[in-house]
């Protein structure tokens, strides 16, 4: 008789273990769903951009270092205030570089600046394709292309 009770108890324990596995899985599903919903809301509220520049270093503080600049498809960069992105730095030319989004990728082209445009530390002499995470240096200003 005790053997019979033990067997039923064991069966309950066994099924309990599998049930616990599914309880855990259910909790995962709950977390995943909540996360998807909040992501959806966020997407509606946030602007959809093709990329942005993070300013890493800017001695004259224009643009202020530590900020990000939302990018349009065509961006001119230089010390002239008519540029899309105005950069205050003595080593940057009036019309320094052009940052454009073509097709699926970003490209940067030097506009004949005096001190040149650098991508990840290498001076460029023709339009260069950029990946997200690449670093742009104009004069003493360092910026990073981000998503």
């Amino acid at each position: 008789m005790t053997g019979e009770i033990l067997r039923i108890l064991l069966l309950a324990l066994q099924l309990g273990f599998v049930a616990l596995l599914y309880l855990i899985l259910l909790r995962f599903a709950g977390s995943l769903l909540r996360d998807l919903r909040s992501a959806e809301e966020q997407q509606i509220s946030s602007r959809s951009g093709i990329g942005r520049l993070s300013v890493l270093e800017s001695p004259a503080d224009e643009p202020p270092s530590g900020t990000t600049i939302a990018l349009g498809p065509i961006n001119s960069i230089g010390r002239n205030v008519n540029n899309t992105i105005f950069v205050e730095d003595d080593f940057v030319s009036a019309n320094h570089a052009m940052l454009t989004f073509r097709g699926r990728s970003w490209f940067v082209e030097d506009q004949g600046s005096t001190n040149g445009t650098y991508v990840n530390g290498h001076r460029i002499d023709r339009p260069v394709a950029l990946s997200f995470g690449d670093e742009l240096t104009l004069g003493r200003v360092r910026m990073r292309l981000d998503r």
Partner: protein
Amino acid sequence: MRIAWRGVELRLLVPILLLVPFGFLVTTVAVSGTLVSGDLTLAIGYAALLLAAHVLLVVFGHRGDQLILPAVGAMGGIGIVMLNRLPQDLAGTSGFGIELGMAATQLLWFSVGVAAMLAIAIGLRDDGILRHYKYSWAAIGILLLGATLLLGYEVNGARLWIDLGPVSIQPGELLKIVLVIFIASYLAETRTLLTSATMRIGFISFPPLPYFLPMLVLFAAVMLIVVRLNDLGTALLFFGTFLTMLFVATGRRSYVLIGLVLFVAGASVAYQLFGHVQTRVDVWLDPFADPLGAGFQPVRALYALGRGGIFGEGLGQGIVTLGGGLTIPFVHTDFIFTAVAEELGLLGGFALLGFAAVLVFRGLRIAALARDDFGGLLAVGLTISLGLQTLIIIGGNTKLIPLTGITLPFVSYGGSSVLASFIMIGLLLAVSHRSAIGADAEADQGARA
């Protein structure tokens, strides 16, 4: 450093902390036939380990994904419960006058793995060291392979092991990580070139060869050596991961097409040339042709799956040993999924797959949210590698594909595998942390403007 509460993670971890002691209890009751709790030291140790990992992430203000650690914890929990249930003398360590059985050794490796994971997740604040030294990583990878080729010794027809005094390691497991880092960094740099310029042959456009060649050469070398070492599962894993990363980086279907054609060609050549490949495929097609010889392992595994049925035989009640030996040889490494399915049934097997699916889903989400190409590609590579490894070995266990001996991440017994898998999770968490920090900085700025 600010403390960052991780409520979602804690909420998910709580039932997982209970899972392992509960599993140990059920096993003891089933095996002993009486209502005793048995020795719960290992189970409590495992729960404490997970809790400690959670607390450390909170204390160090880690902002990475909160579902990854619980998913890994659940898979590892099922693993520890199963390994505790199998004969403890299958594997183990001894030293300093202490003898450790298989489950205890696995827990030891889990501690090492969790420590490595935390060190990477918390310590890796800048991915420059991964990204800018890609040829150093490639060199390390080649060194690992060379070491295996020269110093390795054979276990079951595959030369994968290096003896390092007290422990033996499998360099292939670490090679996997190094290779993913290299490919991610290479593709992040040349991605735009690979998508833009083309050579056209017929209707398929090829990548420009000069940019593609260095990676292709390295990859071919790795594949050649891996195949030479008879490690077919790893070869398949590397190839699948490489192809996925290439597709994600370029968005070109033609690369995948070329890859698949190469795979079919390579596989058929390997089938013609190597006897052991032929045996594997023949056994897969008809294991019952030679049930006491080549087909012994798969036949026994299929019977075990059949015994398990939908609800399973119950923990501690499967037929693990038969006639003095293991019912299924290598049940603790290659066939751990079969052991789970025998005792926990189809339901238990599905639950395990579910946890793996959560891991892959979150890994790909980390990749999608990554701030830069390198982080994204790294996350894709690591995730696909873990996911593919799970599919390849479970597919082999269930006779869906030919069996290749690789481990089931976080479940199979094995130090190198556990350590490598945790390093991969650490890297994923590091990528995830960086994007969370970046998103915060942006939100702050938006609030100020």
